């Protein structure tokens, strides 16, 4: 068994936390796991990604091009940027909430959300899109969008471990102060994705 997950986003969105939660859940489910994270300078509002490799064998932590089974995109442009890692037929869940870059250096293309979304729709059959930032904001804070997306992945039934396993990890790892809002965002996203998937 091997299952590779890539989480893409912008520094500050909680990509590292999301990948650690998935890694812990995978370990709890009895798999080997290996992650690669973006820590340091590039974290400051830059493009960040986490690779999570789950399976029976121990591998290097970077997912090869075309091998990710699941791409969780916390931001549309960053999702598109990481699409080459996705395997043919791999699953994509994307947060449609944009984070335009803080500055536009000379030569940087315009941020064109509708073009990016139609590209994603054209190339990723079965893609699931929602504004998870807004959804988390409704539950109390936009910062819980990362955990909301984990709820979405659980709701879509695309994780190699049970929803309960992931919830147990959330309970154990998220400090009590933030637990309720994260749990609510997780549940809300899970229900929301089930509705979309069934439709």
């Amino acid at each position: 068994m091997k299952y590779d997950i890539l989480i893409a986003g912008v520094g500050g969105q909680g990509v590292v936390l999301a990948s650690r939660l998935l890694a812990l859940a995978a370990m709890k489910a009895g798999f080997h796991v290996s992650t690669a994270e973006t820590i340091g300078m590039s974290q400051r509002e830059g493009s960040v990604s986490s690779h999570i490799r789950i399976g029976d064998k121990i591998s290097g932590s970077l997912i090869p091009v075309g091998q990710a089974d699941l791409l969780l995109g916390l931001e549309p442009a960053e999702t598109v940027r990481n699409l080459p890692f996705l395997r043919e037929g791999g699953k994509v869940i994307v947060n449609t909430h944009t984070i335009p870059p803080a500055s536009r250096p000379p030569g940087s293309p315009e941020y064109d959300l509708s073009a990016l979304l139609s590209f994603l729709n054209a190339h990723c059959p079965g893609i699931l899109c929602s504004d998870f930032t807004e959804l988390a904001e409704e539950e109390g804070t936009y910062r819980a969008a990362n955990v909301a997306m984990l709820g979405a992945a659980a709701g879509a039934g695309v994780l190699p471990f049970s929803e309960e396993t992931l919830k147990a990890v959330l309970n154990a790892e998220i400090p009590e102060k933030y637990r309720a809002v994260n749990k609510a965002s997780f549940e809300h996203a899970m229900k929301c994705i089930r509705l979309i998937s069934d439709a």
Partner: protein
Amino acid sequence: MGNEAIALGAIEAGVQVVTGYPGTPSTEALETIIRYANRCGIYTEWSNNEKVALETSVGAAYSGAKALVTMKQVGLNVASDPLMSLSYIGVKGALVLLVADDPGPHSSQTEQDTRAFGHFANIPVLDPATPQEAYELTKLAFELSHEFEIPVILRTTTRVSHSCGDVEVTALEPAAVEVSCEGFVKDRRWTIFPRLTAERHPWLENVQVQLSECFSGLSCNSVSGSGKIGIIASGVSALYAKEAVRGFEELFTLFRVGTVYPFPEKAALSFLKEIDRLIVVEELDPYLEEQVLQLIGKAHLPVDVYGKKNGFFPVSGEYNVDIVIDGINGVLADLGENSCLPHASPAVLREELPPLPIRAPTLCAGCMHRTVFYAFKQAAKQLKKDSQADTIFSGDIGCYTLGNAHPLNMVDTCLCMGAGMSIAGGLFRTNPEAKHVAFIGDSTFFHSGIPAVINAVYNGADVTLAVLDNRTTAMTGHQPHPGIGVTALGSASKAIDIADVVRSCGVEFVRTVDIESLENNPENNPENNLENSLENSLEKCVEAAKEAMKFEGPSVIVFKGKCVGITKPSKCYTIEPENCTGCGFCVIQLGCPALTLPAEEDKPFIQDNCSGCGLCAQVCSSGAIRIQEVGL
């Protein structure tokens, strides 16, 4: 995480003293030790630089204690002076250096290779591939250091140090460390002197031979497979190679090297005798390649070597499975083999992607550095108008290196920790008509910034130093430093005042500008109004900057503020659309991540991540940016 595994390995090995200076990707090792320090009885400190950290651990090891020093690869350059001498002297307890390399690089100035440094310094180097191996090799490093009385380097890379994974440990909760330190015993062996060095040099060379012998018998150097094409690899590259040849294992024999220096020649020879050709898979320097080329020459073996030196593998940058597949396929084609290792087929090829906005790292929303950079930009503009003088800005290493980014463009030079003011001094000698400003952070000031201040005073350099004091080591994750008044273990210590330090160095122009209290204290202005006081804060920074730049001789301004990464915002701002003219000045000039002007809108707005510095409100000429909420 790999760094946590190293910490647990060190505790299990009985480490008693741990010192280090933060540096990505090494930082979390010492941070993990801090978590267990009191419980396990381990003295742990953030030293003010890597040289001091190493020397402190050396003192502990001379006394028979087991010590660990942590740093990133460029930190080893700072610590290299004591290290080069220490190899002759040796140690008594044990001394292990964790040195984390950063192929890419992701967060570093260089792509240097610590394996080669170990070779240069005659210090053994272990090179793990996974967090599990990092844990095991840490324990081995302590054993070797104790047995051979020599410091040992545990070298990791970003993908080992910053990889999380399952690690099997002996004890989940580390036990208290057994105190086994006999204390310092006076002996001439601890005092380096030309005669002692001459005596010790043959010992040092002999240890290298003994270690190479010992390493050849260790299981962390392993051979797998029986194909006629050999692959030699160390660190995480070995895993990439293993994955790259999956399905074609019968063609290859893989030799994984865990103890890279001294090179395990015996083990390598028996591997080389069974193969026809050799592929070398390694990031950074062609270190293993040089070792095997030498060995093949020495043993007159008929083995062709394919690596970086003959162009089959990239000479720089971080590797991954795809790069290794391409390299091996190049070799297979050269050999006339029919086999070709396949790449996976992606859903979308990189070439098919639509144009994507560039997203470079940038200063956080509300970062005090942005205010200071912007103030100096204005001051330099005004001085240029008044006196035609250009200003050259020298940067340093830390978050504020990001002042180089568009649109601030406020870093004209940046070289290494503490170099800003000395470089500015050299620029002054050759460009005396220009103004010279250097920026340095608080932690970097204590690390290696002080000697340049002394030199500027001593030799009379007309340079302005702006200390960006946000009261933390921000870039590496907010470690304390000598200016904070707290140690790594959380106990109170004397907070060293930067302004006092530069004054005592003889700087005559010293100002402190407290940005935070200017931002938040209505009493700073006659009308007792928070918004008016804010308007003053940028102005006060600009005035101080101009005054310092006009001063003849070295001048220092200490800008005090908060790091938004560890403080809660006290207020946030909003743009009132009815007053906003849509000029976009705030967005274009400041590059603040909280400000955005989407293509489809004609007026900018402020996002949730505003942390209330108020800089945008101060630059808006139509007064459209107002405090939205106080006391968040």
